[in-house]
Every structure is written in C-alpha cells, then in structure tokens.
C-alpha cells in the first residue's frame, strides 16, 4: 500500500486508514476465514475506534482493513447518504485514507451501510460492508455463548423456527420485519444486521461481496458473491417482503422500500424511497411521484427536482 496524499500535515500521526498494519492484517485474516465459511461468525480483536461502539465500529474496521487508494467509498445510514453518521464516517475515511467518496451506488467500490442494501442492484467487484450491532441470531433465544456455538457447529437450528412459530401464533404472521434470519449456503443461520426483510432477497446470489462487522461483539462474517441466502420460513407461511399500497411520493417508484415522512403537524404524511440516492436518480431521469410538487412547496426537495 502506497503512503500518499493522506499525509496532509494534519493526520500524520495516524497510519493509512487509521488502523496499524498489524491490525489490518488480523482483520483481513478474519475476513478470509469468513469468506471461506459463509455465514460463520469469526471472532476478531476489535479495536477502539474514535467513535463509540454501536456507531458502526465493526463496519469501519472492515472498511479500514480493505480500503486502498484506488477505492471509491459510499456510506449510507438509514438508506440515506446525508445523515450525521454517514457524513461522519465518510469524512473519517476522507481524512485518514484520503478516500474518494461518492453517493452514486454504481460508482462505489466499497459501500458501508447500516440498515439498508441499495435499491440499485450491486455488481461484481463491489463490496458491501455492513455495520452489525447484534451478530448472533440465536442470542435472544439462548443466552449462553457456549451453547449457541454448539448449536451453530451442529446446525441445531430448530430454535430459530420456534421464534418464527411464536410470531405466527401471536400475530398470524411473522412480524419480524428487520434483521430477519437467513440460512447461508444451506448451512449457517445468520443475522443479516438490521436491514428490512425487504432487502433480504437482494442478498441471495448477489454478485457483490458482502462483509459484516460487529465491533462491540467482536465478530466478522461474510457472504461471498453468488451465494444462496434463504430467509427462514414455514411451508404454509412462506417468507414475504413488505409491500406498500402507494408509490413513492417523490419519484413514483413502486418497487422500493418506502419510509413514512410526516409533512406537517395536521396529520399530513407521505411515503418516500428510503434510498435517497436512488430516488434522486429516478427524479433526474424524469420520474414523478404524486406528492413531488407538494414536497417542493414545503422545501422537502429542491425546486429544480420538482420542475
């Protein structure tokens, strides 16, 4: 790795991409093992980072270990590129790794994410890095770590279905809407981090490499490109993703994950794409949603978008 423009006089005290090379090597070794055993949680020596655990330190450490001068980084938080957390993480890598950053999904080589997978299909060569708060899908059902390890080792996953059973028994359907458990490559059951179950199908046979980092829990796992990822379900209660009765209010998309936005204090509300970049791209391409003009009038979007 060449040492270059990151040394702008302000950050010289740090190694490239903040972490020292030994730590990066340790993380890369964990990543290699994770890729070799899809869905298996590999322990790693999670480091202190200059932000609190639970703010994405696992994802940041993975990104720091894999980023290079040729990479372009996109960071999304709640599907958006412009939230505080996304902006801070992007700035962190701009300063410590002199990273090129982008909001365009297709232009990114590394996408660090919390909560979402971009709507635009990912391509071979891209890497999706997830920030994972709770990597153990069995934890809420079995508190003992030694026991959950045995359950993974021997694929004793009946308990996962007990959880789904409980949901259907109580609410008539599986009400788990995010962090919905999946079976990877027909073997390990994996927590896909708090993405909506809407995004689960995007993980299946995805051409991009998917890496998961849990900083506080000190676990790394991975889904290699073109790997089967199946959401758990029952034969008579098959897995279904969320759907909405109305299109995105801004761009009119009917096939995206929508967030509810409150527009005034009189009960007004609208549904808009959670993936802000995708929505903007569609509007730039001339797609219009039914609420676009109204949104522009209250400055939810720039005037020229509404034009």
């Amino acid at each position, binding site marked *: 790795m060449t040492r270059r423009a990151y040394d702008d006089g302000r950050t010289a005290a740090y190694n490239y991409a903040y972490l020292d090379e030994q730590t990066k090597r340790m993380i890369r070794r964990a990543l290699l093992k994770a890729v070799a055993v899809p869905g298996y949680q590999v322990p790693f020596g999670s480091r202190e980072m200059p932000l609190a655990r639970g703010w994405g330190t696992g994802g940041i450490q993975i990104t720091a270990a894999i980023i290079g001068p040729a990479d372009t980084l996109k960071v999304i938080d709640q599907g958006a590129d412009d939230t505080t957390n996304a902006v801070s993480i992007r700035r962190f890598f701009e300063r410590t790794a002199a990273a090129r950053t982008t909001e365009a999904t297709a232009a990114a080589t590394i996408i660090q994410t919390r909560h979402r997978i971009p709507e635009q299909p990912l391509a071979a060569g891209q890497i999706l890095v997830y920030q994972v708060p709770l990597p153990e899908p069995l934890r809420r059902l079995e508190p003992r770590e030694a026991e959950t390890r045995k359950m993974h080792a*021997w694929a*004793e996953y*009946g308990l996962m279905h007990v959880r789904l059973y409980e949901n259907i028994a109580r609410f008539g359907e599986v009400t788990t809407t995010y962090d919905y458990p999946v079976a990877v490559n027909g073997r390990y059951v994996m927590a896909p981090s708090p993405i909506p179950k809407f995004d689960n199908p995007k993980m299946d046979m995805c051409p991009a490499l998917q890496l998961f980092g849990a900083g506080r829990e000190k676990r790394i796992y991975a889904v290699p490109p073109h790997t089967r990822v199946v959401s758990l379900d029952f034969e008579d209660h098959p897995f279904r993703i969320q759907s909405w009765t109305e299109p995105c209010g801004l761009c009119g998309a009917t096939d995206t994950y929508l967030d509810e936005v409150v527009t005034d204090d009189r009960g007004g509300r609208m549904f808009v794409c959670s993936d802000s970049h995708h929505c903007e791209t569609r509007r730039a391409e001339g797609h219009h949603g039914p609420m676009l003009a109204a949104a522009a009038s209250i400055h939810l979007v720039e005037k020229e978008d509404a034009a």
Partner: protein
Amino acid sequence: MTLAVNPAQLGADPAPILSAGDVSRFYGERIGCAGVSFDLWPGEVLGIVGESGSGKSTLLRCLAGIDRPDQGEVRFAGRAGGMLDIFSVSEQERRAMMRTEWGIVHQNPRDGLRMHVSAGGNVGERLMDRGDRHYGRIRAAAADWLARVEIDPGRIDDRPVQFSGGMQQRLQIARVLVSGPRLVFMDEPTGGLDVSVQARLLDLVRVLVRDLGLAAIIVTHDLAVARLLTDRLMVMKAGRVVEQGLTDQVLDDPQHPYTQLLTSAILSA
C-alpha cells in the same frame, strides 16, 4: 423339573433398551455414584429411591447423557439394532439422541421449559428440531399433546409463566413425548406439588407410560410415588445401589438395613 425363563414370553422385544455397566461418577474425593449396573427393558418403569444426596440425580444425569461418567458405560439400543455406548459417540450425535430417542422431565419446570415461549412453541420445538417446517401441522400436534396431558388446547398461546406448577410439569411431559421417545427420565416429577395435584400427575404418567409402551426411569424420594408408578426399584445410599428388585417386594419385604429404615420411616407407602 426344568425352570426356564423364555424371553419370548416376556414381551416382544428380547433386548434391553438401556444397559448401565459399572456407572460411576466422582466429585473429587467424594462419590457421586459408584458401580451402578442394570438393564432396562422396553416398557419397564424403573424407580430410583434414596434420600437427598444419595446419588440418584447424579446417576440420572449420567444415564441421560448429560454428564459423562468417570467410569463405566451407558449403552442404548439404537434404532438400527445393537447397543450404542452413548458416551463413545460424538457430542453432536448424543445431543441428537437426547432430542429424539429419550427425554427428561426435570424437577424444576424452569430447567425443562422455555418460560417465555408459548405452550405450543414449547411442545413444537422438538418437531422443529428434527426439521418439521409446516406450521399448521406443528400446531395441530402441539394442541393434540396439550389435550393428552390435560391442558386446555385453548391455552396453546399462553406462556408457561402463566401456568400452575402442575400444568408446567404436564407441559414438560408433552414437550418430551411429542417426538415419540422410547425412554423418559423423570427427576422428582411431583416434587413441590400439592398432594391433589400430585395424584393427577401420577395418574397421567401411569396411563401415558402404559399406553405408549414407554420405558421410564423415575428418580424420587417418595416411596408412594415409586409404588404407584414403577415396576422395579433400586435403592441408593451414599452413591451405591444397596438393594434392587420388584417394587412391591423391595417395599414390603426389604432385605437391606437401609431399605428397612427407609420403609419404616413412613406411615404407609
């Protein structure tokens, strides 16, 4: 005169289902249980009696595959035929057997139930463990088993924390029996229950064991429970078996000094 006991006359299956040979477990210098050997036959109910600390529960944990004996072996009749040393197979295989071939009803329901999972989920777990993936059929099986242990199937979605002690024990029994095990272990199944609730539970166990042709090993310090439920009795003292035989014979004509003390210490069994 020939005195022949022809095994063919003694039930359809001539092979024991469980065979313990010199089972011993030590806690440092102290003996948990030592030198316990016996055969258990399909359909037979064996009682293990003795006072607290006599090694009953230690022995049960060895027999049920929870704790490895320091000495001796526990062999179980495999479905394919032949006896399998349950501690010579991998832990994975042993755990699989523990979930399907036999089951344990614990003294404390908290050890045997998931207290925050509904009754239906508790009963259905073993079915889901073995790969059942049809919600409707799992639920129907759970409702059926709740009825068989005399729990109103209308309470299928209630959690065990909302159940009485007697109901929790019956729920444990349903949870274990749903997968069709051939052997059931019970550790003081009526401990901590009111006398009237005990009677109901005992009767239920008696009927289920008889109707399903189960083999059972019941640990109890209550000789009345032993007399009502068991065919055979082993009396334990300080980790060793001091007397064993037909239940009514051991209780009515005890031979060992300790058994005589035990049977005379109660008013009637």
